[in-house]
């Protein structure tokens, strides 16, 4: 138990996030711990496909670039690293990190590897229903099935002295709750404290989204220096209250408004936020602006953790063909609409088997649907035709049908593009806790 607050930062809010703000955090954030959250819902399914193609692959593509950038200074300052960059292959990721640490001469650095989230063989064995479709998770269509682990394995790894903890699928807030709980000697079944640590994790897990990213609206909500956006830091007290801030002099801002937006980000019922660790209750949270990019948060609560774990299931689900072409000047909207009508008719004439079709006029109705109450034509529009098909060949036929508008469609159509992608749909199911068994292994550099 330590009376001193823990300083924990977030060095990445998604797999492709900026790298130098994380370096700034390690160098100037006075951190105890830095978390890299790099595993969106679909990222792990893509990683499972990469691992199937290469048994040494399937971890975060930016792992080596990130570690090369932050590891020397993190080791020198003894800033602990917790990350889910192991994705579908935490052991392979740990081996890469050990190779980097070896080359840098970081003797004594210990890496912990958390595994056990991969439950594809269990889910493929039958008896699991997908929440979204109501259908059974059939083994032949399931590309990946990963259970969301909680804070427990990370707590064990840190207590064992790991400097770097590498996981696969772990609930995002758990990456933060674990080091906080270890530092303050919290019991994980103190549900109020678990709810408090989960709130801190939830606020930080998207990196720049709490420091002024995904926020600016010029003239209404101005944010300074977004190109140099600082990543967040939480200073967490033993009673679970926290102060959210960022590195002094970095871009962005931490205010009551940025924290309130992030508090409700991806939340449904704010009194029942389910994680593997707790059912957190954010309804009593109070946010206090302390000035100078410092915001106090207090009042989170929690109830006993759920008896089941959520499993993220990746399923192949056909193909999407996407064709686009632009029109500008007087009559652009009418020409764009004519172009869309032509493509719809063409797809029937040539008989492309289509499961679902959508045509949008970008600039008019692509994002918010038709708005009858909004008058006035835009000067430029872009037709977008997207279709779901069973085969790649059919998806290409849809995309190319848009391109044929160059010579066969309305006047002045330019900038046609065609693209096709395979659909990896993410679905979910629940698994009883006792069917998931995690483990932690350790690698030590120079040992």
């Amino acid at each position: 138990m330590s009376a001193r607050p823990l300083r924990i930062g977030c060095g990445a809010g998604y797999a492709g996030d900026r790298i130098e703000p994380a370096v700034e955090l390690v160098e100037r954030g006075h951190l105890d711990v830095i978390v890299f959250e790099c595993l969106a819902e679909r990222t792990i399914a893509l990683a499972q496909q990469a691992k199937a193609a290469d048994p040494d692959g399937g971890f975060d593509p930016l792992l080596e670039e990130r570690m090369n950038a932050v590891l020397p200074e993190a080791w020198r300052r003894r800033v602990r690293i917790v990350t889910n960059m192991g994705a579908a292959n935490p052991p392979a990721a740990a081996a890469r990190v050990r190779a980097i640490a070896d080359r840098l001469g970081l003797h004594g650095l210990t890496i912990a590897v958390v595994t056990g989230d991969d439950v594809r063989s269990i889910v493929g064995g039958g008896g699991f229903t997908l929440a979204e479709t109501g259908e059974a998770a059939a083994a032949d269509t399931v590309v990946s099935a990963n259970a969301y682990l909680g804070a427990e394995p990370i707590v064990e790894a840190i207590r064992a002295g790991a400097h770097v903890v590498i996981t696969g699928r772990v609930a995002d807030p758990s990456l933060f709750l674990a080091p906080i709980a270890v530092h303050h000697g919290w019991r994980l079944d103190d549900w109020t404290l678990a709810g408090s640590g989960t709130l801190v994790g939830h606020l930080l897990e998207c990196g720049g989204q709490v420091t002024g990213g995904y926020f600016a609206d010029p003239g209404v909500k101005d944010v300074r220096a977004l190109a140099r956006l600082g990543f967040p830091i939480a200073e967490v007290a033993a009673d679970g209250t926290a102060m959210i801030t960022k590195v002094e002099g970095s871009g962005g801002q931490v205010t009551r408004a940025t924290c309130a937006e992030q508090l409700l980000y991806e939340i449904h019922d704010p009194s029942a936020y389910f994680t593997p660790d707790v059912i957190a209750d954010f309804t009593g949270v109070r946010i206090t602006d302390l000035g100078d990019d410092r915001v106090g948060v207090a009042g989170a609560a929690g109830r006993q953790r759920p008896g089941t774990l959520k499993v993220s299931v990746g399923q192949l689900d056909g193909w999407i063909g996407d064709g686009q072409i632009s029109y500008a000047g007087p009559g652009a909207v009418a020409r764009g609409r004519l172009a869309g009508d032509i493509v719809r008719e063409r797809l029937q004439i040539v008989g492309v088997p289509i499961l679902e079709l959508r045509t949008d006029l970008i600039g008019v109705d692509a994002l918010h649907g038709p708005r009858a109450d909004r008058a006035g034509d835009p000067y430029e529009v872009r037709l977008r035709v997207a279709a779901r098909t069973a085969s790649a060949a059919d998806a290409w036929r849809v995309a190319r049908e848009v391109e044929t508008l160059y010579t066969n469609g309305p006047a002045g159509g330019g900038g046609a593009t065609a693209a096709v992608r395979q659909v990896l749909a993410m679905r979910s199911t629940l698994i009883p806790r006792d069917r998931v068994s995690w483990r932690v292994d350790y690698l030590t550099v120079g040992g």
Partner: protein
Amino acid sequence: MTLRDIAHARTGDKGEICNVSLIAFEPRDYPLLLRTATPDRVKALFAGVVRGDVTRYELPHLGALNFVMAGALGGGVTRSLALDPHGKSLSTLLLDLDI
């Protein structure tokens, strides 16, 4: 006058469910949010993009509302045909609601 004059908003996504928060700049405007952004009005505003139910949660401590919209993301973020499969842009639609 629209909600954008008194409040700010953010969209989040999970599967086929979208949530849009609505937060008063000034706590004193929270009652106005409650009166203006009723579930029925929000559902009508989002008719072009949301097929399912709209549920409103109230957070008086934060001066905030949270709208949870089912069937919002065209079959879910990972398989949607939409240009913006996450619905990231939907927060600004809510802010366009007349007061």
